[in-house]
């Protein structure tokens, strides 16, 4: 069964304390891996798409990387405004639906 698992469930950091969020996937033929940010009471906001192992993408303090089994979202010197739930999702060959992980709730304390 296609599955996407994120860890940790929740992460609390001090402002400026860098860390990484993990997304592991077991899917039958990955076509794309997506990262979204979701603020409370709002819809997910698209961050990155990764298509092949070794690919990296950056946006401000965030960098997403992809291997054959997992993806990491690295956050460097985070600020309180980076607090949100970060979702990863996979789309597989032959399918047209995203499979979402359960998310990591990130809190950055000032």
């Amino acid at each position, binding site marked *: 069964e296609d599955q996407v698992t994120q860890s940790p469930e929740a992460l609390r950091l001090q402002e400026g304390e860098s860390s990484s969020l993990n997304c592991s996937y077991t899917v039958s033929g990955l*076509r*794309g891996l*997506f990262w*979204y940010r979701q603020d409370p*009471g*709002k*819809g*997910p*906001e*698209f961050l990155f*798409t990764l*298509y092949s192992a070794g690919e990296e993408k950056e946006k401000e303090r965030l960098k997403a990387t992809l291997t054959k089994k997992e993806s990491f979202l690295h956050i460097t010197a985070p600020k309180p405004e980076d607090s949100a739930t970060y*979702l990863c999702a996979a*789309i597989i060959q032959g399918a*047209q*639906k*995203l499979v*979402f*992980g*359960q*998310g990591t*709730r990130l809190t950055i304390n000032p």
Partner: protein
Amino acid sequence: EADIYQTPRYLVIGTGKKITLECSQTMGHDKMYWYQQDPGMELHLIHYSYGVNSTEKGDLSSESTVSRIRTEHFPLTLESARPSHTSQYLCASSALTGLNYGYTFGSGTRLTVV
């Protein structure tokens, strides 16, 4: 600026009422989706559509129904609301072709059934 719009943003309604959650997108996307999300929980796909007159049930069983008469419009209807339907409902769309299968999400409708 959001190109996918959901109304209402919040809705409190009594048990047994019929409700329709609206979703419209201006991007000309063929594919549209409805997800249900409880607070702090993951998104569950309840309905999707690959184009006009195409609708499918998602991975999570739902008592709701959908229709797709126009490309830009994908409403979700609950014939008789119950407290168990209390949740956030998120609509999304994406292009049918191309490598970028990223979804664009609406802001959601938070439904409370009392």
